[in-house]
């Protein structure tokens, strides 16, 4: 009895899958898949980039869509977990019939999606994954952000020149491709300008106790500590560093930028520095328009870099579809690869041979519980 019920149920579900698989191709809309970390450890990143993407799609559709067709954005949550991304991306491509994929912020999870998109011949645009390996996966993978060799060099220069630090310690999250990559390029940058790495320690993302490593860092007496981690861990590290009396500037990359860093870290993150993609208080008409539209759509919330990049990734893709003149994945890929100077909110984007965006970075400082714009560094 039970078994028969189960069999008929699975038969029905098979049928449904098959039906929905073919019903999506064609039609009067262009299906775009998005995967993001809407819940979990890096949730604020996923939510921000998703909101940016959503705003872009809504803006485009309000203006009549692309190629006379509406864009249909299908979003899946990977819960900030390893393994979940491949499930949702496979579903977006084979079941929902997405012609292109957008996602995501964390490099580890973009790296999970990239081979799937590449094999299926579907172009993928990552809004904010900065690890070089992401686009090295294949010729269908793009990004609208700068890459870690650039970000690492920018921070190395900033630490040695602006902060005048000669001895630097590096504290890496060994669980994250992003952190390991950024740490590597930062170290190379420091050595190139004649600085010295006095301590290199590791942690596992999600750890709660960092005092052992921080005590070792403190005993090496660095002038600054570089922590290329994500905001939750960085906030706890800053708190414990402060408790241990490690009172030197802490620096990091775009993984820091989240309201949660300020909520958890409070006064412990005050005065520290990080590099990121854009500053909402920068003087540029494109930024001002975007900030206003975003605030209007999301109840007065200030857009962070991930929101701006999420917006840019969707706009960049739409621009590619327009220039391709069709919603064919192959044509879109070729059009994206030929992008020369696309005006994005986060700066002018040119796609190079590696399918990476060549653009500038900004450096922010935490001041009075807010992120404050410090300087822009051109590529």
């Amino acid at each position, binding site marked *: 009895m039970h078994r028969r019920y189960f069999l008929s149920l699975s038969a029905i579900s098979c049928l449904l899958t098959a039906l929905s698989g073919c019903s999506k191709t064609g039609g009067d809309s262009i299906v775009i898949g998005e995967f993001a970390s809407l*819940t*979990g*450890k890096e*949730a*604020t990143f996923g939510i921000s980039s998703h909101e940016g993407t959503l705003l872009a799609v809504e803006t485009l559709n309000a203006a009549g869509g692309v190629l006379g067709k509406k864009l249909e954005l299908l979003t899946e949550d990977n*819960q*900030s977990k390893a393994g979940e991304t491949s499930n949702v991306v496979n579903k977006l491509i084979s079941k929902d019939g997405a012609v292109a994929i957008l996602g995501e912020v964390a490099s580890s999870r973009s790296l999970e999606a990239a081979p799937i998109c590449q094999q299926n011949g579907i172009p993928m645009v990552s809004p904010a994954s900065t690890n070089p390996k992401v686009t090295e996966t294949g010729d269908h993978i793009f990004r609208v952000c700068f890459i870690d060799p650039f970000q690492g060099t920018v921070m190395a220069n900033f630490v040695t020149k602006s902060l005048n630090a000669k001895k630097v310690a590096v504290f890496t999250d*060994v669980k994250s491709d992003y952190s390991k990559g950024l740490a590597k390029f930062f170290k190379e940058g420091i050595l190139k300008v004649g600085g010295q790495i006095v*301590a*290199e*320690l*590791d*942690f*596992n993302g*999600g*750890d*709660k*106790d960092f*005092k*052992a*490593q921080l*005590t*070792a860092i*403190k*005993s*090496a007496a660095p002038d600054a500590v570089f922590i290329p981690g994500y905001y*939750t861990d960085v*906030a*706890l590290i800053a*708190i*414990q560093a402060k*408790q*241990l*009396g490690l009172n030197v500037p802490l620096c990091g990359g775009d993984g820091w930028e989240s309201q*949660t860093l300020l*909520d*958890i870290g*409070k006064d412990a993150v005050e005065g520290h520095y990080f590099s990121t993609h854009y500053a909402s208080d920068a003087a540029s008409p494109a930024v001002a328009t975007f900030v206003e539209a975003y605030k209007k759509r999301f109840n007065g919330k200030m857009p962070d870099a991930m929101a701006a990049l999420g917006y840019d990734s969707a706009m960049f893709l739409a621009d590619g579809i327009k220039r391709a003149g069709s919603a064919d994945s192959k044509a879109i890929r070729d059009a994206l690869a030929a992008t020369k100077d696309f005006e994005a909110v986060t700066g002018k984007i040119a796609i190079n041979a590696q399918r990476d965006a060549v653009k500038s970075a900004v450096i922010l400082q935490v001041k009075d519980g807010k992120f404050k714009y410090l300087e822009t560094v051109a590529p």
Partner: protein
Amino acid sequence: MDWLLQQLINGLALGSIYALIALGYTMVYGVLRFINFAHADVLMLGAYSAYFIAPAIHEVMPLPSLTGTLIIVLLSAMICAGIGILIEILAYRPLRQRPRLTVLITAIGVSLFIEFTCQHKAVFGADTKPFPQLMPVHDFNLGGLVIGSNDLVVVVTTLILLFGLWFIVQRTKMGTAMRAVSFNQQAAALMGININRIISFTFGLGSALAAVAGILYALKAPGIDPLMGVQPGLRAFIAAVLGGIGNLPGAALGGLLLGLLETFAGGISGLSNYRDGIAFAILILILLFKPAGLLGKATVEKV
């Protein structure tokens, strides 16, 4: 030298937390002979209880305050005691006569159920929440060494609770009954002991301990999420095994040892990557030579 002493302090502070959590594991094991894997999740629920109670207490008496903290801890411990008793009645009691393995698997199931229910948007959500500062904090500086007031609180609380538990188990009527149940459930029942009541009490007490540990853990690292119990829970379980499972001082000793090992391994440049690996390798070595745990045989009586 400073460096070494500071690591010693860090290690003791971390180890005390592990010890506190391990006490709960070991006590339930002592009575029921099975590992309550949901213990780590009750710990998380304790932290969340405090997170939700704190604003209400803040209305009456502005935090950070010591009295306020005490009230929050007591309320959270009561909530978690209730949850622990409920878990036992719903999940473990129906399996009382089944093989122990069945109960063990069920415990893992309960643990996963709590973790993933709490990660749902409608419950707590999976993102990290900032834990409020409940107590006034002060960092004591002793010639280059830093001792946080929170760390002192953890150490003192662990000692008090260790002694309190020992007292309950060894010197009270309830404790005598617990030991009787642990020794032989059927015989205990024949002697007129209400087994269900004793087991409920054990779970309640263990879960209250977990709540205290959860709050102290959250004070140490003030970012809480539904999976926050998994890592310390695993460590505490191992600490309990290391000390000799079922043995209260053993759990405390195991926790301290594990905390120290982790801290010293984590503080070495180049090795910090392998912090857990080193700590656990040493544990395996210890267990190879003392399979019953450090204090497993030395003291005959089991809780």
